[in-house]
């Protein structure tokens, strides 16, 4: 491929990216408008988010009433993990859950056809067209908790640590996204995949605590098989200053493999998709 060609391709890509950001804005505006139709939801959801966060903190406090650390983590360090847990719960509930729900619905009643006949990347559309705004509260609450824990720890992370933290959060986002995308893809074959999401959540529950609190085997599974460790534990270590650089590389590798793999799976599923009621 000569240089000129690849430049053109790059310009074309930027063009595409702008289009997709614009679409994202429009999709989310659309979802927010739809949600505003139901106002009561907001208060209930905000209340529930705070409630579960407090519940989590209470749980951690009970542990730490007996001892000073678990798995090498102190109370406030665990709160950082808990804050990340809450943030990712919010992210999944705000961005991923509504999309998997509407995907199941669309595959079941065949309206997914309308996505496929439009000039839009189907994976992009299916993954991001819908948003539950209320759940952004969890993200804010989680961030608040992280800030509070850092203050209590009297730790001021360096620029590099912040950089590593945000990179790891990004990696975690990709990993979480890939799991949801894989579950969404399953709906092509099995249609009802709600239970799969529940199963994922029960694994995700383990991310409430640093993986070092679990036994060797469970820790290995949570790191390599269902890489929950990279969602909360590893980003937290970046802030605390105990991150092993190899973990970052490893996380990046997992994220890339998953991203590539789930994209391939999606495209394969689209090919074999035969819509409901012919």
């Amino acid at each position: 491929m000569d240089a000129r060609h690849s430049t053109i391709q790059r310009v074309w890509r930027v063009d595409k990216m702008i289009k997709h950001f614009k679409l994202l804005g429009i999709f989310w505006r659309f979802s927010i408008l739809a949600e505003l139709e139901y106002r009561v939801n907001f208060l209930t959801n905000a209340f529930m988010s705070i409630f579960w966060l407090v519940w989590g903190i209470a749980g951690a406090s009970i542990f730490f009433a007996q001892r000073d650390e678990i798995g090498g983590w102190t109370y406030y360090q665990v709160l950082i993990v808990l804050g990340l847990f809450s943030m990712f719960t919010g992210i999944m509930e705000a961005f991923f859950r509504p999309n998997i729900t509407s995907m199941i619905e669309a595959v079941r009643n065949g309206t997914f056809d309308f996505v496929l006949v439009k000039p839009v990347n189907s994976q992009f559309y299916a993954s991001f067209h819908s948003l539950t705004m209320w759940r952004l509260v969890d993200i804010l609450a989680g961030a608040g908790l992280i800030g509070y824990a850092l203050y209590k720890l009297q730790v001021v992370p360096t620029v590099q640590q912040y950089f590593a933290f945000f990179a790891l959060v990004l990696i975690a986002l990709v990993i979480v996204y890939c799991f949801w995308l894989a579950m969404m893809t399953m709906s092509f074959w099995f249609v009802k995949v709600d239970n799969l999401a529940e199963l994922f959540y029960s694994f995700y529950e383990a991310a409430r605590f640093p993986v070092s609190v679990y036994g060797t085997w469970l820790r290995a599974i949570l790191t390599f098989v269902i890489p929950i460790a990279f969602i909360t534990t590893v980003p937290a270590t970046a802030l605390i200053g105990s991150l092993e650089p190899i973990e970052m590389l490893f996380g990046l590798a997992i994220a890339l493999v998953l991203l590539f793999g789930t994209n391939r799976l999606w495209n394969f599923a689209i090919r074999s998709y035969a819509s409901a009621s012919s």
Partner: protein
Amino acid sequence: MSSAPIVVSNLKKYYQVHDKEPGFSGSLKSFVNRKYRQVKAVDDISFEIDAGEIVGFLGPNGAGKTTTLKMLSGLLHPTSGTARVLGFVPQTRRAEYLRQMTLVMGQKQQLTWDLPAIETFLVNQAIYEIPDDQYAKMLDELTELLDLAPLLKKQVRKLSLGERMKCELAAALLHQPQVLFLDEPTIGLDVTMQTKIRQFVGEYNRRYNATVILTSHYMADVTALCKRVIVVDHGKLMYDGSLAELSARIAPHKLVRVELSAPMNGHNLSAYGEVLKAKGQSVEFLVPRSKTSETASRILSELPVADVTIEDPPIEDVIARVFEQAALARQDRSENDEDESGDA
């Protein structure tokens, strides 16, 4: 290669389906050892459609109409054979192709339930990358043609079925597609609304010289819009040609309705043709096509006639007859080769 916008040759779509015996043990059996059977949803269909044509796609339920439309719109991959629409292979779903076509399904809706239709329109504008001025112009035009003005800002769930269908059509046409696949766009609508939708499709076709394939259970849609029909049954193409020729071939009769000015006094009515109905002073005859004018003039001169109309028998009857004949032909075939359909 042909320059027609839609070229379909030897298109086939076979499905593997599994049969389940009734009851729990049947479910268990099919869970453990599934027997698959091949269903030929579309079986070797070929046709071409020219630019600006409106073609009616007819056939009983399960004939393969929707499957064909889905292959043409890129939703299904054919088992074999090829389809080309506007020079594209549909199932590659190239953006350049998708931008020029649209699919409307009367039984499914793309509009979001909780929001006014105009919001879905805006999403579509972004997806199809329609420039603002062109979008405004097209929206105006569709609003005028479909009387959308009072509907656009209402929540979709508060619209009637007919109103919703109008909005669905608008949402599907904002990007000014050249090729329209309309799968039962008038299903469930009342007669007035059916007429409106029909007129609109005709008008859109005229204005943009769009190519349209339409399936419908309402023959009125087909007779009003389509000069040409394609009849499919059990995945096979039964007929492709003009509507008039179809009725001439299948029903070589005309319907002669006579309004008499005086009661009939022992006239032998059956001398003019097969009497379908004789009630009071109105009579209906079925007369062979070739003898229509001759018979009509005999009726006029020999009977006390107040009014005569000559028409084709209702197209529903004609189509029903096509399917009957197809079913008979199929029976013959399956008697000849009994063991062809086994489990695959």
